[in-house]
């Protein structure tokens, strides 16, 4: 979490308008889902890696480590699609060629889609993306709530980590039953602190004239139409190439 957030705030594309990053990423994501995975998948993976590493200047190691966790889940889960079970005359498990194609397709599609997501989240902090929700009709109150949650997450995460270390140092996790009790106490204590924190925030804000609206100074950066047009053209080219490739192969 810290790594993704850190790069989102410090990468080379940090000060570009969020729409310049969101729109191409979402379009690429939609294309990945819509077109045949085997032709578009590798293109999307290459494009997103290039964009994050060459463009935004995020170390390749970081990008790969962020991709590694979902990739491991896919490797563990997708092979089961290639296995077919039968229930007449008893129970039998067998390998199915159709299933194998489905498994490969799904894995490539999911990996490419995840790379679109990681490209977006590694280059754009959450606080830039969430205000865009207002444009699609999410009420201002809910957007503020989401931003408040984002800010509190890091405070609570630190507390949880410290609490856990303290418990572990006192052998709180030396056996499973003890571990359950420790984890429960930790979560309960965390909840008490969370409520306390909310009360203190309320008190502090009321003292400053809070009446239901949090006023903050948003950082303004102009939307560059030329950059947006360029990246959307590239995304369009990827889609075009892959559908031509698919037709050529078929």
């Amino acid at each position, binding site marked *: *979490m810290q790594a993704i957030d850190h790069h989102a705030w410090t990468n080379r594309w940090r000060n570009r308008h969020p729409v310049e990053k969101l729109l191409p990423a979402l379009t690429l994501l939609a294309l990945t889902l819509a077109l045949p995975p085997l032709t578009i998948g590798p293109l999307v993976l290459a494009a997103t890696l290039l964009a994050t590493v060459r463009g935004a200047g995020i170390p390749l190691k970081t990008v790969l480590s962020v991709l590694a966790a979902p990739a491991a889940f896919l490797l563990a889960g997708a092979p089961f699609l290639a296995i*077919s079970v039968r229930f007449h005359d008893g129970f039998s498990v067998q390998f199915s060629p159709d299933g194998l194609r489905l498994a490969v397709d*799904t894995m490539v599609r999911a990996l490419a889609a995840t790379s679109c997501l990681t490209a977006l989240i590694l280059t754009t902090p959450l606080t830039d993306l969430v205000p865009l929700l207002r444009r699609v009709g999410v009420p201002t109150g809910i957007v503020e709530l989401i931003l408040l949650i984002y800010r509190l*997450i890091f405070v609570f995460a630190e507390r949880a980590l410290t609490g856990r270390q303290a418990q572990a140092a006192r052998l709180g996790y030396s056996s499973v039953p003890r571990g359950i009790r420790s984890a429960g106490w930790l979560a309960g204590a965390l909840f008490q602190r969370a409520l306390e924190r909310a009360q203190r925030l309320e008190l502090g804000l009321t003292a400053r004239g809070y009446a239901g609206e949090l006023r903050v100074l948003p950082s303004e950066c102009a939307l560059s139409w030329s950059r947006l047009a360029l990246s959307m053209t590239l995304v369009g080219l990827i889609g075009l190439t892959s559908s031509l490739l698919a037709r050529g192969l078929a």
Partner: protein
Amino acid sequence: MHIAEGFLPPLHAAVWTAVALPFVIAGARRANRLMQDQPQTKLLLAASGAFAFVLSALKLPSVTGSCSHATGAGLGAILFGPSVMALLGTIVLLFQALLLAHGGLTTLGANVFSMAIVGPWVAYGLLRGTQRLHAPLAVSVFLAAMLGDMATYAVTAGQLALAFPDPASGVAGSFIKFIGIFAPTQLPLAVIEGLLTVVIVNLLQQYSQNELRELQAFPQWSAVEIRS
């Protein structure tokens, strides 16, 4: 149990998003109204949402040795009620996608439906039902959290089965296949989460009566408090 980004075919992703949307909108409306009536509710909800996210990232001691996480659906439903939980759960899942690359945007609807809607509603229904039967609070809470968890996994298995029917035995065969894959890791996990939730609720009951009374903004809690 998150479905990864891009794992579901586009049609399924769209349908699950459409199914989840009304619940989330209803939760958001309710929360928005609460926040407008009482501005301090916003801070309480924010603290609760952040707590839910951190709880879901908390590693549980697991017997199988694999790293496993709590869903928090049961505890959330008990503390905040299922309608607000639909909103908070959606925000938590969005954050997991955007901060941890866990789950995804296209599969958000499917994940919201299993984890932020079905799980909390099952947990809440069980809590109310067993409380009406005058079961001890610990038993109620345990059953609610454990079965809420299991309901979540069953729904996820169902979603995967519908998306990837088995070539030989169809959707039903595929459902059994996915349930079979989940069961060995998720059954013990559900039991652990049930026990964990009991520990948390016990602790809160002992030491946080005042704070829980504050949660009267979520009237569901009163069901638990009256009986205790």
